[in-house]
């Protein structure tokens, strides 16, 4: 009865009794009988007289009393089981009465009829004691009455007569499991479980109505699934529940259930499949409550246990690698180094030179062979590899020592800039901003940035897109670049190198170059960080934020380079241009100016905050144009705009269509960069329409 919530009833029918062996059950019943006889015998000996005669209805009421008791005691049982229990209780009641009568006859030399009269009526307390003693006698057998498996006592008695009583009956699955546990037996092939073949030896198993004779089972040790059960739903600890199982310490599952789930890589059985194997008294709640609280309770079976019990042939054995015709025509494309890089040099190469190098030499940057002459076509990102013959490539001890450098992103000054990656530096183009000013002394050298530091910088770009990392020197400018694989890295870094020299006090800490097909963000740092992404693609604002974060890891940038001064003269501001200034609301209040160079070829429409010199802005715009405007990379497309960031201030430069060089430059504090960019776009369209 899972609904054993009545404390008094549970107190009398301790669940621990269910675990009693059959012998102990009978001894328990016998003890109750003896106690009953002693108590009634003492009462009879005291002779309560006629005043203690019980009323006649006490005899008639006995079956009804037990019927009521069965409703409480066997709530989960069927009507037939209740009726049989009531019958058994009545029979026990009579037996107790007869025993008491026999005792009375012995004590007082009564006739049989008188002794019976005393036992059932004349000794008033006796019938009531019998009513109490009968449930106590039957209590140890209550679990068997409630068990779904019938317990035909007569059949079992007959089986004991045939089978040796001291040897427990071994089911086919139990024998199968014992074979697996016994190495000697496990070595022999295990035949598939065939209940029909094992029928003569397994009468008890075949009796089970829940496991048809034609259905094999798989046994799993309860301890391996016990943790999946809700301990709060049981009144007993799990080790005691294991002892109380129908087959102690084992759960059985139909093999058909297991086979159906084998391809899934896990075998889960629903609780309903194994519920009947648990003792009813082990539960702290009724069956309905249990299913309500744990509607989808499933037990995941240990596959190693399960697979060992499956007959051969269920899972094909003799695994052999698959062969594909034609593969042998291609040599293995990748040949690994004999020893991975993280192996210490001393162990990687006995007597290796790297370990013998003095620290100063070991810390020096790698010297590469001079770069090849400039090619008309941008070189590939990775140099064409030698045709895979790497049996034992020569190892560069300096490079090895660099790879094992500490992970901190510190950058040490090198004797001369060099390129870490295999790509050679690009030839210096004739027109570039960085080349106009003397190269500022760099605090750092880019090529010694460690791989770990590079990885940490890459982590700053999480979620901003897909990038290929690279570090090196382009046009004398050291760079750390993260470029989308769909963009040509050489073109991106070339653009970045030309604007990176402007960063600093003159133009700000970050610049964003938009071309027709790419967005390139360059953040000022001792080694500027370049992020290049395809447009349209990742949001440019996100790129700017992540690039600034990455640059912050490297350190503060230097002061930068002041754009070269030019002789710019102011032209009269037409009302139309003044009107355009009013449309650039995102930049705040702006004053317009129109500047032209000495030759009159370049014209710059300048919109700046009051108090700022228009000439400085014009010089910056022309410097940008000189560096980028004439660059028209096939993969990047034409220049669209260049935006410098100085805190909240933005300096926007964009070319205008028209004769010669016509530029728009706007500067001011910007709270909404997207709006500012759109307003500048419209302003450019208005100026182009002149």
């Amino acid at each position, binding site marked *: 009865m899972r609904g054993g919530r009545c404390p008094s009833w549970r107190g009398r029918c301790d669940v621990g009794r269910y675990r009693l062996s059959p012998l102990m059950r009978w001894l328990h019943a016998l003890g109750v009988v003896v106690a009953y006889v002693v108590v009634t015998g003492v009462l009879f000996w005291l002779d309560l007289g006629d005043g203690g005669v019980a009323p006649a209805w006490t005899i008639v009421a006995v079956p009804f009393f037990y019927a009521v008791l069965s409703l409480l005691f066997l709530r989960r049982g069927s009507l037939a089981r209740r009726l049989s229990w009531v019958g058994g209780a009545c029979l026990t009641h009579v037996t107790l009465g007869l025993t008491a009568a026999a005792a009375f006859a012995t004590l007082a030399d009564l006739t049989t009829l008188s002794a019976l009269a005393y036992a059932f009526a004349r000794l008033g307390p006796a019938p009531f004691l019998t009513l109490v003693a009968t449930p106590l006698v039957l209590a140890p057998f209550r679990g068997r009455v409630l068990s779904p498996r019938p317990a035909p006592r007569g059949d079992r008695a007959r089986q004991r007569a045939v089978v040796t009583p001291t040897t427990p009956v071994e089911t086919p699955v139990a024998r199968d499991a014992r074979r697996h546990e016994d190495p000697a037996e496990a070595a022999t092939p295990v035949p598939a479980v065939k209940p029909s073949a094992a029928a003569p030896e397994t009468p008890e198993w075949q009796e089970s109505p829940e496991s048809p004779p034609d259905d094999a089972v798989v046994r799993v040790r309860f301890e391996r699934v016990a943790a999946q059960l809700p301990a709060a739903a049981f009144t007993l600890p799990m080790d005691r529940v294991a002892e109380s199982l129908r087959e102690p310490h084992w759960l059985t599952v139909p093999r058909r259930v297991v086979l159906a789930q084998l391809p899934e890589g896990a075998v889960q059985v629903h609780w309903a499949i194994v519920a009947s194997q648990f003792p009813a008294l082990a539960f702290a709640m009724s069956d309905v409550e249990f299913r309500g609280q744990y509607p989808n309770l499933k037990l995941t079976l240990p596959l190693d246990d399960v697979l060992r019990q499956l007959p051969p042939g269920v899972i094909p054995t003799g695994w052999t690698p*698959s062969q594909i015709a034609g593969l042998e025509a291609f040599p293995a494309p990748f040949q690994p180094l004999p020893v991975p890089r993280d192996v210490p040099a001393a162990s990687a190469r006995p007597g290796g030179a790297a370990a013998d190098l003095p620290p100063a030499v070991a810390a020096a940057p790698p010297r590469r062979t001079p770069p090849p002459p400039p090619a008309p076509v941008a070189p590939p990102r990775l140099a064409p590899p030698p045709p895979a013959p790497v049996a034992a490539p020569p190892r560069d001890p300096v490079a090895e020592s660099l790879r094992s450098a500490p992970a901190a992103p510190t950058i040490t000054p090198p004797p001369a800039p060099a390129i870490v990656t295999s790509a050679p530096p690009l030839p210096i183009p004739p027109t570039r901003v960085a080349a106009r000013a003397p190269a500022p002394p760099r605090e750092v050298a880019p090529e010694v940035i460690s791989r770990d530091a590079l990885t940490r910088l890459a982590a700053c770009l999480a979620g901003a897109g897909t990038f290929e990392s690279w570090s090196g020197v382009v046009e004398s400018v050291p760079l750390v670049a993260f470029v989308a694989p769909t963009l040509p890295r050489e073109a991106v870094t070339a653009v970045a190198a030309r604007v990176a020299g402007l960063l600093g006090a003159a133009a700000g800490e970050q610049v964003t170059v938009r071309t027709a097909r790419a967005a390139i963000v360059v953040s000022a740092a001792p080694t500027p960080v370049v992020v290049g992404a395809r447009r349209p693609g990742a949001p440019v604002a996100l790129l700017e934020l992540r690039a600034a974060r990455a640059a912050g890891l490297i350190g503060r940038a230097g002061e930068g380079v002041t754009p070269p001064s030019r002789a710019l003269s102011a032209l009269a501001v037409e009302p139309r241009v003044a009107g355009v200034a009013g449309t650039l609301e995102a930049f705040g209040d702006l004053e317009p100016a129109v500047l032209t160079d000495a030759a009159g070829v370049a014209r710059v429409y300048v919109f700046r905050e009051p108090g700022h010199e228009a000439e400085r802005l014009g010089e910056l715009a022309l410097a940008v144009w000189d560096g980028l405007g004439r660059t028209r990379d096939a993969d990047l497309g034409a220049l669209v705009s260049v935006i410098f960031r100085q805190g909240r201030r933005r300096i926007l430069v964009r070319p205008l269509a028209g004769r010669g060089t016509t530029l728009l430059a706007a500067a001011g504090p910007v709270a909404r960069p997207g709006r500012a960019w759109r307003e500048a776009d419209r302003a450019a369209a208005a100026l182009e329409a002149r």
Partner: protein
Amino acid sequence: MSIINYAAKVINFKLVYYGPGMAGKTANLQFVHRCLPDDNRGNMISLATGDDRTLFFDFLPVSATSVRGFTTKFQLYTVPGQSRYNMTRKLVLRGVDGVVFVADSQWDRLKENVESLRNLNDNLREYRLDLATVPYVVQYNKRDLPDVAPIDYLEYTLNRGTRRVPAFEGVAVTGKGVFDTLNTLSRMVLLREFGQVQEGAS
């Protein structure tokens, strides 16, 4: 789909390491990155969380042999194995040329393997691809651990589709099976691209 640059004579292939979380996909790439000569490898980008779970994906460009005058370059990607990152896995699979399915051999990870393989097939179908047609190999990783399933059962659950593909036992952290897996898949991709007659391999 491979990307061919006829001007530069370069063919780019995209290989994706797929599998359940913590199966060893990133470990495969890391070992490849550690063991390839400098000339054959680029920088590896790995975006991982604090507990070394791949957050977005790992990326490692490597270059290999020349075939018919074309330099072959392979871009190795991994996907985040955790089930919640399926959109990322779909994106990484776009344009894939070959797949390595990295399975965790431990008993308690078998279900995740099967679910991940099913997820791989589902995601491939969104690009009109199929495991029956895409070059594909299986690597049974973590074979050095004590509680691993037998290969027969792993083959039964993960490699019994319409075609049986090459499978390798692996221990990615030590490199066992890593290059066997990569080389076999690369050759399958090359075979698919260039066909049976291979003239210019060097």
